[in-house]
């Protein structure tokens, strides 16, 4: 059974059909790419998957569980975490606290215990610190843990956002243009990081990307969107050689 199964997904904004008859099947442990020209509806698909928008029609199943129409908080708890195209960090908080906020629903103590610093508060805060530091070490951010998130260089902000998403312990990780604004070196490093995440956390990853080198380098399968509907899908090499896809990207 596929981890993520999407059938007949669609949404309209007024008269605009943003996504139409979209389907997708991502197997456990797969690295799946979603590509397409600007305005094709890729981020809209992400917003539908994560519950930011309610789908007009269609079914979304995560690990066999129907999550269609649930709120983004419930969907996060069900196991989908995401990053954003324009980075959305908690800017005025430290790098460590950003990850600890990601751990919010994994560790619990009451407000009362927090205010009066009861033993449980100390114990669980310690566990949270340890877990957060583990994640920061994966992304080589442990030296910057006390920095404000907004003071990190761009590439590290991207990494921190991924670390925060992973902190919610998801089954499926959605990356929205992770390489946007990166130079070739940083992109290369990012590819290694993404591969590493998949190995280490046995993570299933669905990503949107424009950088073809990254897409062809790490994605096993692709779906190409154009004007809200699927143009082509299948194995990466075949899809990228498809004349329709080349036409959509480069024109005739």
């Amino acid at each position, binding site marked *: 059974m596929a981890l993520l199964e999407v059938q007949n997904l669609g949404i309209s904004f007024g008269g605009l059909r943003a996504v139409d008859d979209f389907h997708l099947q991502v197997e456990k442990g797969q690295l799946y790419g979603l590509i397409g020209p600007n305005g094709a509806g890729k981020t809209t698909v992400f917003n539908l998957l*994560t519950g*930011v928008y309610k789908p007009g029609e269609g079914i979304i199943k995560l690990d066999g569980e129907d999550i269609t129409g649930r709120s*983004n*908080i419930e969907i*996060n*708890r069900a196991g989908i*975490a*995401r990053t*954003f195209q324009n980075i*959305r*960090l*908690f*800017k*005025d*908080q430290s790098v*460590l*606290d950003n990850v*600890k*906020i*990601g751990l*919010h*629903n994994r*560790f*619990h*103590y009451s*407000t009362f215990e*927090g*205010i*009066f*610093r009861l033993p449980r*508060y100390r114990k*669980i*805060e310690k566990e*949270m*610190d340890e877990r957060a*530091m583990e994640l920061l070490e994966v992304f080589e951010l442990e030296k910057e*843990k*006390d920095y404000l998130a907004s003071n990190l260089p761009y590439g590290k902000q991207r990494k921190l956002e991924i670390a*925060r*998403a992973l*902190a*919610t312990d998801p089954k499926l990780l959605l990356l929205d243009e992770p390489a946007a604004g990166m130079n070739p070196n940083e992109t290369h490093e990012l590819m290694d990081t993404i591969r590493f995440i998949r190995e280490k956390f046995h993570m299933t990853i669905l990503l949107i990307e424009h950088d073809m080198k990254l897409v062809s380098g790490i994605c096993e399968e692709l779906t190409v969107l154009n004007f809200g509907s699927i143009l082509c899908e299948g194995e990466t090499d075949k899809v990228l050689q498809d004349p329709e896809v080349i036409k959509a990207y480069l024109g005739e």
Partner: protein
Amino acid sequence: MKKIKLSRQSRSDLITYGIILLLSLVLFFVGQSSYQLKGLLVPVCAQIILAVSLNLTVGILGELSLGHAGFMCIGTFVGASFSIYMEQFIHIPALRFFLALLVGALSAGIMGFLIGLPVLRLKGDYLAIVTLAFGEIIKNLINMVYLGYDGNGLHFSMNDTASLGLAEDGVVIIKGPQGVTGTPADSNFGIGVLLVLLTVFIVLNLVHSRDGRAIMAIRDNEIAAESVGIHITKYKLMAFTISAALAGLAGSFYAHNYNNIKASTNNFGYNMSIMILVFVVLGGIGSIRGSVIAATVLYMLPEILRFMSQYRMLVYAIVLIVMMLFTWSPKAQAWKAVQLARCKKKLQPLTDKFRKKSSDELKKEGE
């Protein structure tokens, strides 16, 4: 590494508590100089609590609220009524006062929750306007309340004293626009300082806890906060309710300083709410320490400057402007950073010595 981070956080908190103790010592001696100044000692504590609690909404949650005086008003009247009514049952003043503070805080907290439920859907200016309105509504409603008691228990009316239908031995507690009369004078400066410390303790510890991080995550980026599964409404309400409850605590404490207190525009009007906001903004939004200092200085100043007679408000205005520049101008911030670094450099030999000493001691213990 982790220990350093923890100790830095608690060191900053310790400095805040230290500043509060120092300020209260200064206030105590200032209070000895004249009768008028002594009379301000209890209200100034209430003002500090109000400023710190409003900072929880404005600085930590990041939402503008202009109705803070309304919550204080609830605390004042509920706390005072409780004390007057309970005087016949509870004969230990300390216990009665403690319960009155608790009841005042609880009632304001419940009101904050009820108002916050619909109102916190709004943002920014809209929220500010609605909270302003609720503050005024609370004040005006309390102006219509008549409350009294006799052998049969409590009597309540919205019309006048006569319609309370009290027996001959009955006592009127709240008399509409004439306010509440006969509150026992339980408040004093010492309790005030304790309550300020308690308030700062609650707010600082909340900020450093799981809930506090969630609240600040909402302030920094609501969409991202939702994407990691943080319940926006829950944490907004939590911050707003705690903020209101602390304002109620301040109100109840304030009430027990006066025999008679009215829900007048001076006491609980929107000017008061804005005054508290001025403390918060000039002290630095989000800075608890700043709120404490700003509330103290700005509340005491008009009285301290009384010897300047007609130039008093002029100097007050200048202090306001200087404070604003000092807190917010980039140049002043850079200057502060440089001064702080210089201070640290000067203290470096001292701290080194201290560190060496303690590490030596550790070594000795190890041996």
